[in-house]
């Protein structure tokens, strides 16, 4: 089985700030990490090839330094890392990114054989869009299974996969056709630490590097040109302000007077769905 994992290198979001004069995001000095959801995607892929055999290709589109994110996944045990990097990819939104990744998967299949399963994190923690995975699936015409939490079974001869996925009000169990694309939740597994052997291998093995030409991308559909959306401005949200602080004999009563007027509180306390199941 050949599994492709799509990952992204992101800034550690807790540290991100805005330069108030230039109105741009300050990236200098901010540590880069593998998008946490993507580590879960990698872990899921590794567990699946341990069970069903095969190899794991980890792909990322990004600047040259995104190579370190690939090496981190290779150290965990991924068979190969592919960096798709090109100046012309800059300023890509999710539409252009999903095009680029779909073209990369086509090239990957030429070089390393058909892909049976594509796994992505549910979303990247910098953009939080959750749109790139569905975009890639739509472009490749394969089934997209978002919010996957567990793979119950893969039948390689029937080309089917049975998966649990998390929906707003419960867990759905579905069967889909391979090849399929999964996007995974963060808490589905515990990403493994790299072994010493894995780290040594990840240092020695080359990372495959492709660009717009080698994946045969249409210049009109990548980067800025292929991106309909554009950021007009960024700003820091106003800080949350604390509400009334109540003391004394009637504090609880007064506090509940406040929250019983709140739409969200009313929703959970009087709503049909209720807060949970244990009423």
């Amino acid at each position, binding site marked *: 089985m050949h599994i492709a994992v799509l990952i992204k290198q992101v800034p550690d979001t807790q540290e991100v700030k805005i330069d108030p004069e230039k109105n741009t995001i300050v990236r200098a000095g901010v540590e880069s990490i593998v998008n946490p959801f993507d580590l879960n995607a990698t872990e899921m892929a590794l567990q699946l090839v341990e069970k069903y055999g095969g190899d794991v290709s980890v792909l990322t589109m990004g600047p040259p330094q995104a190579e370190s994110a690939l090496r981190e996944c290779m150290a965990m045990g991924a068979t190969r890392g592919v960096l798709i990097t090109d100046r012309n990819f800059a300023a890509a939104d999710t539409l252009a990114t999903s095009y680029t990744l779909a073209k990369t998967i086509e090239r990957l299949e030429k070089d390393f054989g058909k892909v049976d399963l594509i796994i992505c994190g549910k979303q990247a923690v910098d953009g939080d869009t959750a749109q*790139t995975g569905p975009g890639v699936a739509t472009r490749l015409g394969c089934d997209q299974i978002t919010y996957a939490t567990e793979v119950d079974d893969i039948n390689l001869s029937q080309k089917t996969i049975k998966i649990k996925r998390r929906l707003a009000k419960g867990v759905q169990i579905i069967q889909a056709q391979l090849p399929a694309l999964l996007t995974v939740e963060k808490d589905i597994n515990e990403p493994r630490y790299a072994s010493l052997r894995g780290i040594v291998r990840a240092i020695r093995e080359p990372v495959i590097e492709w660009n717009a030409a080698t994946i045969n991308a249409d210049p009109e559909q990548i980067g800025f040109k292929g991106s309909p959306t554009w950021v007009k401005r960024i700003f820091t949200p106003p800080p949350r302000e604390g509400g009334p602080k109540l003391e004394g004999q009637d504090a609880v009563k007064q506090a509940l007077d406040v929250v019983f007027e709140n739409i969200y509180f009313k929703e959970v306390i009087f709503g049909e769905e209720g807060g949970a199941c244990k009423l």
Partner: protein
Amino acid sequence: MSDSDWKDVLVFIEVSDDKVQEVGFELLGEARKLATKLGQNVSAIIIGYDVEKFAKDCISNGADTVYIVDDPGYKDYLTKTYSKAFVQVVEKFKPDIVLIGATPLGRDLSGAVATVLKAGLTADCTGLDIDDKTLKLLSTRPTFGGNIMATIYCQKGKPQMSTVRPKVMKMPDPDLSRSGKVIKEHVSVDPKDLTVKILQFISDDCRDQIEIEHAKVLIAGGRGCASPAGMEKLKELAKTIGGEICGSRPMVENGLIPSNRQVGQTGKTVVPRVYFAVGISGAIQHLVGMQNSNVIIAINTDPNAPIFKVATVSIVGSWQNAIPKIIEEIKKRTGR
């Protein structure tokens, strides 16, 4: 075809369990405001089986036209079938703007639809407006984990698509006297698109505990109540209001909750509707994991506890005193 051929603000009405998801009506209210600024109309699209009956609710909540794609083949949501129907309606009626609720289903659908249409799509917005000069849609959304807000627009192409977070826009007051058009669109389900089979659905109602990141109400304990007696009171409150128990690190260290119920930097980030912070001082490591909760009710004996700076309402006092009173008051006010 020029951009000016695209008119109207189209809202996706999500139906599940034979009920319209409220975010659809919230978006109709918002669409009305945008359409008024643009001098356009509001339309709605409903896809499903036996869904025509919801058209009048859409009209009374602000839609001028309702497109219905109704067929037994759309009984269950499947990305491929729904996106095909959606794309056909958009290509035929050419809306300027398309709004979809940022529910799990809405976000699954919107990514597929926008990709086929090659349309700009902005995810999970919390604010919408029209640019006075260009008349383009301005979508504002939190990014970088909520540390930064970004306003996005479509530099080219139509329609302009956004998914919008539920419960952010105000529900419109329905006007039952409004009239509108209902247009039935037939989009047949291609058997080739039925590659996904739904085998089973396990509702949260049937499960003992739900993961804290999916709970609507969380009762969180901290150092101040990290004892078996404190835990008992937290459970009692959880039972009354229907919530799940979680906490800060001391609750885990004292063995009262498992580590997958820890909230904060080294635990989980949660955004429930209601978060009770009991005996939690509110160190930054905890705040980053819960400060986006819709309602925060904090109880602490220290009047200067940092948690009070983010709380919707704060009670200065001991949990021993406060929790029994809260339980009593809630029972009284809800008749439980």
